[in-house]
């Protein structure tokens, strides 16, 4: 997983001015401050619009798709034509309909596995960082183990043993193999946070551990958690595509990975059906690009030096 390069702070950037302007805009338009900061970043705005586009397509997939993605009543292995813009598969299904419905799968997997692995990372990272001592030693060992075990071979092995291959299995396998990176970052963040004055103050005021974590620590890690979620969702979308491409996905779900698998097995290259081959991969890279662009804005959220006018 690669994090986008944080830009070098522009010398003498008027960060306070930007922030003041952001709060002023937020006050007049009643938008939350974080959204205004994200929106003012040009790269991030493009990313947000792209993601919104994907979400709309995914939500209204049945309305947008010209045919049922599983309907194989059409002529097989067609190139792009007027009634099938991206052609048909070797089984005679409409490629465009599969592409549209595939957006749904990728977003569901990204959202579900992203939330799940962020939760695992949060619980393990928070406990390790906050409790310390031998608990930290054991959990840190687990985190480091999770970081070095090669994820895709582990996913493949886990998926191979599973008695049923549903979408949920894929989501769980991806979450179980993808939490370690986020957990490590959250642990080191919390170690710097737990000795801050306001945490000590809360402890002297008689607050319990759970309350301190929920009220004092988590609110100060929001952007870290969001970045972690974005990274995990991105990894999950890629992981699902990879597993599905290897033929280990859910055979009943249409996804961009299964489409590429079918295109490769169905001889899309030999019949010259470039649209069937290019469309799913391009959709996948555009979705990943939108996440990467949004991450630029989230970096700006957590680091005021990076904010753009």
């Amino acid at each position, binding site marked *: 997983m690669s994090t986008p390069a944080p830009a070098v702070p522009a010398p003498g950037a008027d960060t306070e001015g930007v922030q003041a302007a952001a709060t002023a805009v937020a006050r007049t338009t009643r938008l939350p401050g974080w959204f205004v900061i994200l929106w003012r970043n040009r790269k991030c705005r493009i990313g947000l619009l792209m993601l919104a586009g994907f979400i709309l397509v995914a939500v209204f997939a049945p309305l947008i798709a010209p045919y049922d993605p599983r309907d194989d009543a059409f002529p097989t292995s067609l190139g792009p034509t007027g009634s099938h813009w991206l052609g048909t598969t070797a089984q005679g299904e409409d490629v465009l309909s599969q592409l549209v419905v595939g957006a749904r799968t990728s977003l569901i997997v990204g959202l579900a596995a992203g939330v799940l692995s962020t939760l695992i990372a949060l619980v393990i990272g928070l406990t390790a960082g906050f409790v310390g001592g031998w608990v930290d030693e054991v959990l840190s060992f687990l985190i480091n183990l999770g970081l070095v075990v090669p994820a895709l071979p582990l996913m493949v*092995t886990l998926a191979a043993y599973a008695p049923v291959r549903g979408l949920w299995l894929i989501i769980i396998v991806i979450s179980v193999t993808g939490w370690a990176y986020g957990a490590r970052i959250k642990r080191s963040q919390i170690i710097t946070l737990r000795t801050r004055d306001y945490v000590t103050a809360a402890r002297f005021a008689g607050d319990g551990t759970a309350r301190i974590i929920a009220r004092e620590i988590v609110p100060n890690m929001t952007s870290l958690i969001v970045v972690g979620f974005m990274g995990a969702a991105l990894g999950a979308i890629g992981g699902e595509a990879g597993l599905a491409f290897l033929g280990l996905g859910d055979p009943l779900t249409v996804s961009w990975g299964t489409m590429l698998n079918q295109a490769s097995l169905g001889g899309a290259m030999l019949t010259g059906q470039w649209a069937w081959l290019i469309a799913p991969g391009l959709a996948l890279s555009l979705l990943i690009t939108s996440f990467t662009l949004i991450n630029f804005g989230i970096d700006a959220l957590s680091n005021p030096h990076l904010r753009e006018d």
Partner: protein
Amino acid sequence: MVYFLRRFVFFLGTLWAAVTLNFLIPRLQPGDPAEAIVSRLAGQSESVDPAQVQAIRVMLGTPDGNLFDQYVQYLGAVLHGDFGISYTYFPYSVTHMIGQALPWTVILVGVTQIISFIVGTLLGTWAAYRRNSRVDSVITLGSTFLGTLPFFWLALLLVYVFAITLHWFPERGGYGGGSSPGWSWLFISDAFQHSVLPAVALLITGPIGWIIGMRNNMVQSLGEDHTRLAVARGLSRRRVAITYGARIAILPNVTGFAIALGGILGGTVLVETVFNYPGMGRLLLESVSSRDYPLMQAIFLFTTVGVLVANFLADLLYGFLDPRVRKVESA
């Protein structure tokens, strides 16, 4: 010394955990592996008698007894390097099959990753040296963009364009039908031709992590006090960048190299599948689709142990290169 001892203990711990994980995963599934091969045989021939079932059990070394006994038996077998017989490539042993596939992956991954590391570090250094210039933004934005392309898809496109449409390179396999593995010129040149496209697929995305890591580290180290002192001493800009910026910035990339190996091996599974390349990744996938559990388990274990050893070596190297880690850990 404490640093090296700690790293060694961590290495042993992860090694044990990986071996145990490998033991536990197959036991998460319902049913037993011997049953699976019996039902597969039953599908091919007319009937399977109980004596045959017993023979298969003995042959596969499927252990009886409780979980703890099985675990002890398994640890003993692993220590002796005995991973049993492959179901699909009977009568070859699992170790034999891995021995056949391993050199392909080691050479492909080894060569492409060393090139990626060198190219990525150089480009990252260049971008940081000319930071905020056109060169910098072309390199950083270019690699960010390339990094968003799913690389098994890139591999598919490479096959489509260069193998099937243009016929420049063979489309699949590790060597052609005319040659057999050995030290002959025919085989080596043939294997080289077959490895060009898989290598290119790995090289397109390979350097990205190093470019971004190196650039960011170096921009940071160029802003530190010792660099400012070097500038104040009147050293040339190039010398400051290389001996004061790059030399420090390259350190985290050394450990990064080992950590990235796990992800690279995952990518290799995909690339080997696309090109039908006779390495560990394709063997893993073949063993999965034919439900050859002993082979699959051993490949997973080999891959994981390989990554762990690489990490341990990188940790040791890092300890020698950067005296600060030794101090911090022993304090």
